[in-house]
């Protein structure tokens, strides 16, 4: 592992696992490499989509794969940028088994100056027998909101106001 990734991994873990929806879902980034990320998610009753069988909702798989592919895309960046998803296509092979963790992995298979192409899959026991497979494309956008001053200002606001800071930011 190179030095850049060694510094980058805890930052990415913090950003993905501890904020917003990532914190609510509660997954863990288990491996971060250049253009490759793996995550695992422990079963939760709150996110069940089928009340008869107890299978998790497809939306959870969408969130996991979107986060995993997005994280893989971020690891390939040379300069700070945001990487919004352009599109995401998911094929569900078979339903997830309730009460078992879900593992997700994603890989950037083509990286161009403006667009990153990713593929990802989710599985439980056997990576060769995935529950879902996805392809996703991401844009590279260098945004003024990522400037050092703006990031510090937002961190400060969130420290002072907590979650209310998001509302203030959105209402501006």
């Amino acid at each position, binding site marked *: 592992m190179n030095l850049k990734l060694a510094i980058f991994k805890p930052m990415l873990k913090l950003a993905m696992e501890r*904020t*917003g929806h990532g914190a609510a879902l509660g997954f863990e980034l288990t491996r971060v490499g250049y253009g490759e990320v793996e995550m695992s998610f422990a079963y939760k*009753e709150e*996110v069940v*989509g089928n*009340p008869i069988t107890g299978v998790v909702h497809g*939306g959870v798989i969408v969130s*996991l794969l979107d986060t995993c592919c997005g994280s893989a895309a971020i690891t390939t960046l040379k300069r700070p940028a*945001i990487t919004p998803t352009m599109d995401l296509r998911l094929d569900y092979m078979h339903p997830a088994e309730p009460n078992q963790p879900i593992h997700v992995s994603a890989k950037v298979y083509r990286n161009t100056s403006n667009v990153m192409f990713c593929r990802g899959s989710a599985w439980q026991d056997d990576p060769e027998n995935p529950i879902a497979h996805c392809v996703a494309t991401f844009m590279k956008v260098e945004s003024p909101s990522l400037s050092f001053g703006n990031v510090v200002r937002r961190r400060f606001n969130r420290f002072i106001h907590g979650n209310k800071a998001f*509302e203030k930011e959105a209402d501006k």
Partner: protein
Amino acid sequence: MSLDLEQLTLSLSQARQQSSPQQILDLIPYSSFIGAQAKVLKADSENVLYWLERRASNIGNPSLPAIHGGVIGGFLELSASIEVLYTLDVNVVPKVVDFSLDYLRPGRYKTIYANCTVLRQGKKLVNVTATAWQDNPETPIATARCHFLIS
């Protein structure tokens, strides 16, 4: 939490009779996890509006702040499945076969609205499209297309 097929069929027909898609949403734990809600726009019409009020646990990128792309996807997938259960005479939980999502604009930290259209209903498969917007239905933030297995 666990429900049997008979109870589900009963709750579904009750929800359709009372024109209350919200009752179907309440059966699914994931909908309260993200905070999805639904109502019919006019009495007797089958036009359902779905919405997702803003909440901190749905944020994906705190630096904008923007709603998590996965939440938008999950919300559209959920809306599409409720549309199938509410407007069609289907009494099993529809299984998603594939799901394709295009993000058109960032989802700001505001309420997201969505509506769905069933494009085709076959014996086994249903094709549904869903569109999400925030300020104006003319400027959608995402569109999705979904196949469900209903047999």
